[in-house]
């Protein structure tokens, strides 16, 4: 099974490269061309959410993205920001909550990103680290 990893200092500019990487790796894995835009957007959203979380908590550690090419195409994006109680309650807010919701930009971005991911990706898991530091977005698509 092939693995591709991409890690980056949590800055918005690198999320663009992350989208390129996701689309390139997916294309070379021969993912259906219909799914390429979805993978590109989804990987971008997961990285955007991770950068927003690192920024909100002042965490400098690299955001990590990993692809596994096997029976399915699996993408994982891991952040290393503390998991707060609010994060857990607010997972994938509905649109009314979003419209009325947080005014802090990074928190809003995190919620919108999760809501968009929930709508976009059929196989999506968001896992908080057992020790409370970091969360991972795991997504997969058929090959």
């Amino acid at each position: 099974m092939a693995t591709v990893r991409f890690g980056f200092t949590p800055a918005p500019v690198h999320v663009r490269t992350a989208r390129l990487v996701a689309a390139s790796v997916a294309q070379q894995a021969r993912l259906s061309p219909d799914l390429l835009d979805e993978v590109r957007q989804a990987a971008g959203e997961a990285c955007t959410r991770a950068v927003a979380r690192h920024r909100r908590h002042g965490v400098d550690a690299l955001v990590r993205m990993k692809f596994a090419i096997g029976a399915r195409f699996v993408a994982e994006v891991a952040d290393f920001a503390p998991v707060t109680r609010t994060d857990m309650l607010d997972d994938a807010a509905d649109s009314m909550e979003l419209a009325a919701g947080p005014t802090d930009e990074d928190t809003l971005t995190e919620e919108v990103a999760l809501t968009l991911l929930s709508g976009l990706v059929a196989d999506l898991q968001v896992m908080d680290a057992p020790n409370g530091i970091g969360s991972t977005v795991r997504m997969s698509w058929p090959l």
Partner: protein
Amino acid sequence: MELTIHTRTAGTRTVVDVGGEIDMYTATSLRERILQLLREGVTALAIDVNQVEFCDSTGLGVFIGASRRLREMNGSLIIVCARPQMLKIFQLTGLDKVLDIRDSLPTDG
């Protein structure tokens, strides 16, 4: 691809034409431009996203923020969008029910 932002007037409404990619890297300049218009007293705003090639959650966040601020000011925000790719992300997030999205600018401005 970089973001382009142009402002024009249509009747009594101020229209912001946006093109390119709205993402975490470029959204700040769009947010700043809109805040500046609100500070200048604009209360009837339209954002035309028909030339937008890519938009992520940060871009949606800018629309949500603008909509919220204008509601507080008793102003109004119209999103002009006929692009299927953009409509899809409004629908996926349910924002099509919260934002006033039209396929073209209303003729009354």
